[in-house]
């Protein structure tokens, strides 16, 4: 990537104000032809706003945009696409019951009336091969994996003649292998002259894939158009959050106590009625963090749900001390202090239209002091919410704000505040840091360690391997609904092999130094 490549996008002094905040404050952004340009920033730094402006979703309050040298003014995404700019959103906009070709053609003027799909199937197949985006044009969207769906979204933009692609956190939904495939695709596209804007807050990925990076913090540019070569992760992180971020977590030695969770030979089905857990057994003791590693969709979510009592099991047993979690109502488990941070913050963890107060008291509204006869003590509830708000740094205009207006990080803090304050013995945390910025991640990881030190047992289910290894005392690896094995020393090589379906006992020992003593 040479410096003298022409600019394909120039955004000059872009300012965008929303009520109460300035999302972009005099932001400059430049994209060169054929480069992958990362846009880095914390949640709420203004990355998405800036890109939504470029994609025609918002109009800036002031500033100028030039595409390929000419000033433009976008009124809608359609205008942006005409100018060759296509945005691939984090949440795909595809019709599940239609085929790939139908989805790509959706909303276009051609074909006019008679579909003649087979002709277009061929065109799209060719387009896919050219761009290293292999997907069957006749397949229905619901049959495709997330990675394949993403390819369809990219194809959709390429078919419309876009040569500038904005990818909004494209790796957030992908499994590690799919990320590699995506990166290969992106590289081959830039070789063909396409230019890509890569929005992310994952530093490793940016270092791996990007040619240049622009960093935003609180709506302002902290590093403009910086070549990625020679930049370290720590430098990027401090540009992003404005202070040094500690990556190595200090953690005291593990003092595991009595088991607080015993899962034995559990079988359960997923939402589609297919077996999701096939004889899972594991233990979590007081004072330790136990990690569950695995590629998404190998039964981790179902495992969390059966423990939390949200999913029925077919056989096996789940006990916490003398409590049979498969028999007692969820309420009983909550009263016993079993806390659960669900994977899905919006659809399980919170009630979007209810206030921060109502969301914080979800687990103890019927306990003293909030409960008062058949009524609720509003004063006590508010006082409780205020104290949690301060303790957990939840940033909201007021505790009466509906939580749908909260940012991802604050929403997660609401959930954490609620769960951790009600936790006594066991915490099940599923992807507690997903989608959060570095500062928030650090805070949450500290909270998990605090629970461990105060003698709670934590079951941490995560797809962030780095996080798992640094936090966990032991790690189980799940593959296709089974536990492949357990590691105590965070041996990444073994975890990786188990994640792809090799049992621990079948893993050949490496010649170099190997720690002994781990058994499945």
């Amino acid at each position, binding site marked *: 990537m040479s410096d003298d490549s022409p600019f394909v996008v120039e955004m000059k002094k872009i300012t965008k104000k929303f009520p109460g905040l300035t999302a972009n404050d005099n932001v400059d952004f430049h994209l060169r032809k054929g480069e992958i340009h990362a846009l880095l920033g914390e949640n709420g730094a203004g990355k998405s706003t800036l890109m939504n402006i470029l994609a025609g979703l918002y109009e800036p309050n002031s500033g100028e945009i030039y595409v*390929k040298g000419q000033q433009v003014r976008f009124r809608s995404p359609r205008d942006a696409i005409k100018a060759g700019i296509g945005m691939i959103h984090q949440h795909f906009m595809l019709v599940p019951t239609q085929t790939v070709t139908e989805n790509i053609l959706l909303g276009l003027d051609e074909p006019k009336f008679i579909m003649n799909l087979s002709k277009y199937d061929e065109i799209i197949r060719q387009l896919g091969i050219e761009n290293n985006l292999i997907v069957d044009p006749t397949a229905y969207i619901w049959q495709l994996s997330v990675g394949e769906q993403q390819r369809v979204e990219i194809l959709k933009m390429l078919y419309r003649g876009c040569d500038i692609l904005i990818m909004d956190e494209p790796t957030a939904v992908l499994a590690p292998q799919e990320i590699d495939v995506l990166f290969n695709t992106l590289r081959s596209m830039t070789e063909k002259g396409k230019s890509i804007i890569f929005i992310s807050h994952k530093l490793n990925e940016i270092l791996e894939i990007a040619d240049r990076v622009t960093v935003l913090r609180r709506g302002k540019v902290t590093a403009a158009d910086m070549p990625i070569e020679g930049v370290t992760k720590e430098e990027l992180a401090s540009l992003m959050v404005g202070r040094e971020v500690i990556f190595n977590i200090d953690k005291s030695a593990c003092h595991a106590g009595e088991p607080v969770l015993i899962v034995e030979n559990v079988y359960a089905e997923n939402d589609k009625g297919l077996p999701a857990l096939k004889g899972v057994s594991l233990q979590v003791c007081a004072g330790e963090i136990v990690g569950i590693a695995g590629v998404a969709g190998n039964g981790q979510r179902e495992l969390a749900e059966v423990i939390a009592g949200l999913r029925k099991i077919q056989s096996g047993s789940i006990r916490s001390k003398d409590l049979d979690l498969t028999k007692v109502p969820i309420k009983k488990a909550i009263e016993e202090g079993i806390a659960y941070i669900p994977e899905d913050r919006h659809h399980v963890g919170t009630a979007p239209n209810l206030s921060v107060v109502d969301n914080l008291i979800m687990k103890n509204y*019927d306990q003293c002091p909030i409960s008062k006869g058949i009524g609720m003590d509003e004063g006590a509830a508010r006082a409780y919410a205020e104290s949690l708000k301060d303790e957990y740094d939840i940033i909201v205009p007021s505790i009466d704000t509906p939580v749908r207006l909260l940012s991802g990080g604050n929403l997660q803090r609401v959930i954490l505040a609620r769960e951790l304050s009600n936790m006594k013995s066991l915490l099940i945390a599923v992807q507690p840091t997903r989608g959060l910025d570095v500062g928030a991640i650090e805070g949450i990881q500290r909270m998990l360690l605090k629970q461990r030190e105060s003698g709670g047992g934590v079951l941490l289910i995560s797809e962030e391997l780095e996080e798992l290894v640094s936090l966990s005392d032991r790690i189980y690896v799940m593959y296709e609904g089974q536990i492949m094995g357990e590691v105590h020393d965070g041996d990444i090589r073994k975890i990786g092999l188990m994640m792809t379906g090799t049992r621990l006992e079948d893993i050949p020992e490496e010649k170099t130094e190997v720690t002994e003593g781990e058994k499945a």
Partner: protein
Amino acid sequence: MEKQAVIQQKRKGFHFRLQVEERSDEPPKWLSPLLTVLALVVAFAIAGILIALVGGDPIYTYSRMWKAAFGTWFAFSDSLTKAIPLIFCGVACSLAFHMKIWNIGAEGQFFLGAFGASLVVLAPIVPKGSSSWVYIPTMMLSGMIFGALWGFIPGYLKAKLGVNEIISTLMLNYVAVAWNNFFLFGKWSYQGFQMSEKFPKEALLLRLSDIAKKYNIKALQGMALHLGIIFALVTAIIMYFVIYKSKWGYEIKLTGDNPNAAKYAGINIMRNTILVMALSGAIAGLAGASEISGVVKRFQGSISPGYGYTGVIIAWLSKLNPLMTIPVSIFFGGLIIAGREIQPSGIPKMIQGIILVCLISFDFFLHYRIRISRISAFAEE
């Protein structure tokens, strides 16, 4: 392609444009009442144009309507009387709607409530000649039980079998009418008419006109307003506290907003679905019982011009707040009375419809804002 890429708007004559944006913050508190007032103004303006188009005088029509509904104490008493079943049905629907259970069956529950109250007199459950202290509570209770039963059925079906409550409650409305007709045409038919004999006066709710007679107060003479208004107000107040101040109310709101979160918080959704439907039915049943005992005075057919369905509208316009159902119901009661004054049907129904459409459309501004921005000459080029 490259030329197309440059998007320039050159619409001559327009130097400003409208832009609709979703609100990213909470609307201010004064906005909602202001919009309600604006919606009413717009609705009456539209209706006025239509009245003028059919050859009427809108101003005169509205002044006559106002007089007929609220112009005199006598008229106001009539409007309040009409508001009684509306408050009950509005509250009944509000409760269910808080849990996002779409109970469209208040009409049927109203009919069963009327049946339950009549059963006390006609079966008879209470011996003839009992005092009103025996009659009235028994009738109200019986009305509530039958209404509750009519709510329990769809509630149970929804909770246990996942039957869509919109369909089941709607269908049960027709069953309720047929059920009442079975008794009207048969056992309880009075001299072959499709009505029962008149209830004894101990089984009737106290009216203002009764008080006028007893204490010889001229001012209250002939006023039809009955004790049901007290029942309705008390019910609305109690339900306000149940929904907004009780733990059960919290469970209902949480379930309504996100059933997954409710399940995750350990709330028994199945039990609450059945309870909410039964209680909603009981309140609508109370409407039927009070109407029979306070207005109709006997068991007969066509006792409701759609109170149950209007209850759905009232719940919606009150933003599901039981206390708000009171003024909204009085307003609608007034509209019903005023409608009779100007035309037996047609225009009054139309005005109701226009008000409803306007009120609901104006909610748009609660969630979106409209920005008017000037296109500067610079940007134009």
